[in-house]
């Protein structure tokens, strides 16, 4: 059984075709890295899968159940969209933490708002909120920030902010967690702390899709690598094999450019 199946995703902006039929599937606990040069459509793919853009064609399945079909889902109600969205989590390149909330509040906000829709909320809201706060505290501990939970984003370094945003995405217990170039906005020294957090998640069998430019990291942490070029999957295979023995000409040229 696949936890995530993506079939033939197409997306264009006006006449500009960004995605030209992307397909892949993932098993639970698998880590998939997506490599490719700028403009190859990696970020657009992630945005389509997280419903920030609507794909023009294609289907998405979670646990083999269809959750998105471009043909029929052009007009989803907001409620439907949200329930589908909650299958996934997304960590942004530039964190997008909410500046008016502390690290702790950033992590708690979405679970608290979601809990309000639970019919038991009226009678048990104290226990529910207590539980959400406990979970959030343990998530912040997991990303190594228990001492920073009452800090505002502006008081944290870039690496710390990105770790809060990872905790925030984890708080909703998504089935698949997506990372959109999570280290690209960080200094090289801070990159390591994020990669360590992602590595520790991989060890706990979190299913993840990581768009990244960190070739070595992708090779070490992921099971599969997918190389994208001009809106299509140029090559896909086991991580170590793809990096050490690329078969596609474009993949070879791309990897070569990093060695220089």
């Amino acid at each position, binding site marked *: 059984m696949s936890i995530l199946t993506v079939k033939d995703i197409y997306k264009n902006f006006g006449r500009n075709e960004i995605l030209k039929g992307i397909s892949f599937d993932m098993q639970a606990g698998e880590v998939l890295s997506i490599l490719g040069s700028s403009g190859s459509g990696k970020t657009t793919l992630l945005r389509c899968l997280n419903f920030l853009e609507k794909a023009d064609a294609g289907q998405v399945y979670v646990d083999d159940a269809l959750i998105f079909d471009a043909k029929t889902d052009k007009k989803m109600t907001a409620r439907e969209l*949200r329930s589908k969205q909650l299958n996934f989590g997304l960590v942004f390149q530039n964190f997008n933490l909410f500046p008016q909330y502390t690290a702790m509040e950033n992590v708690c906000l979405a679970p608290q708002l979601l809990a309000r829709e639970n019919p038991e909320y009226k009678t048990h809201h104290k226990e529910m909120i207590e539980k959400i706060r406990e979970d959030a505290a343990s998530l912040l501990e997991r990303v190594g920030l228990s001492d920073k939970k009452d800090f505002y984003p502006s008081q944290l370094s870039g690496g710390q902010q990105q770790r809060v945003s990872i905790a925030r995405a984890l708080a909703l217990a998504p089935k698949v967690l997506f990372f959109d170039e999570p280290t690209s906005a960080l200094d090289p020294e801070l990159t390591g702390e994020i990669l360590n957090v992602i590595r520790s998640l991989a060890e706990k069998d979190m299913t993840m899709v990581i768009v990244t430019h960190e070739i070595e990291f992708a090779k070490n942490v992921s099971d599969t690598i997918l190389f994208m070029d001009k809106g299509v999957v140029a090559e896909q295979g086991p991580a170590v094999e793809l990096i050490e023995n690329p078969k596609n000409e474009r993949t070879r040229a791309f990897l070569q450019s990093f060695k220089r």
Partner: protein
Amino acid sequence: MSSAFWQFQTISFFNKTHSERWFLMDFAVISTVLSALTEGFMQTLKLFFITLLGALPLGLIISFGSMNRFAPLRYLCKTLVWIIRGTPLMLQLIIIFYIPGYLFEGGNPWPSGESGRFLAACTAFILNYACYFSEIYRGGIEGVPVGQQEAGQVLGLTKSQVFFKITLLQMIKRILPPISNEVITLVKDTSIARIISMQELIWAGYSFLKGSHGYSGLIWPLFFTGVYYLLFSGLLTILFGKLEKKLSYFK
């Protein structure tokens, strides 16, 4: 000279010598003038607060309208803002007060007397300030990075939760300086209501020049109205400063 003497004098400011002009202020005059000015100031305050109460939320509605995807609504709002910002408030006030009288068979639908003038003034001021506020709001909302809304959306927040829990406070922080500017302008703009003889502060001051409360030809009460405006706008400046400080905990 006793104050009673001055009470029954109707003297002109202009045919007095320089030193005599200063003697036109004694305690009885001062207390009469102060109570009349305070009464006018109360009317000014009422107009001020009702305008804010109406224009702050109405401006938000207009700003949503001018950002709406539905083109006819967007153009309607933009046209309204263009007309209101493109013509003087004084003219709008005159039109809103007098035009209904031409349109309705039974005569002017505004209540008679001060209450009618006050209602017309409130209508004109709310409409006018709502349009200015709407543009400030639009700038404030568009200034919040789109990533904030996207982060809210992928966390499963509804559109209204995104607005009220994420965008709103960041927008308020951004718009506080221009809003405080507008609000302080409003304090002084209320004097424009005098054009339809609403009995606000300037009207009250001016009445002592025209003749009122047994006095005429007194010009200093008009000068003195400035003190009310200054004190009130000073108070507002302090208040907005405090608000800005309160929101300085995040960037």
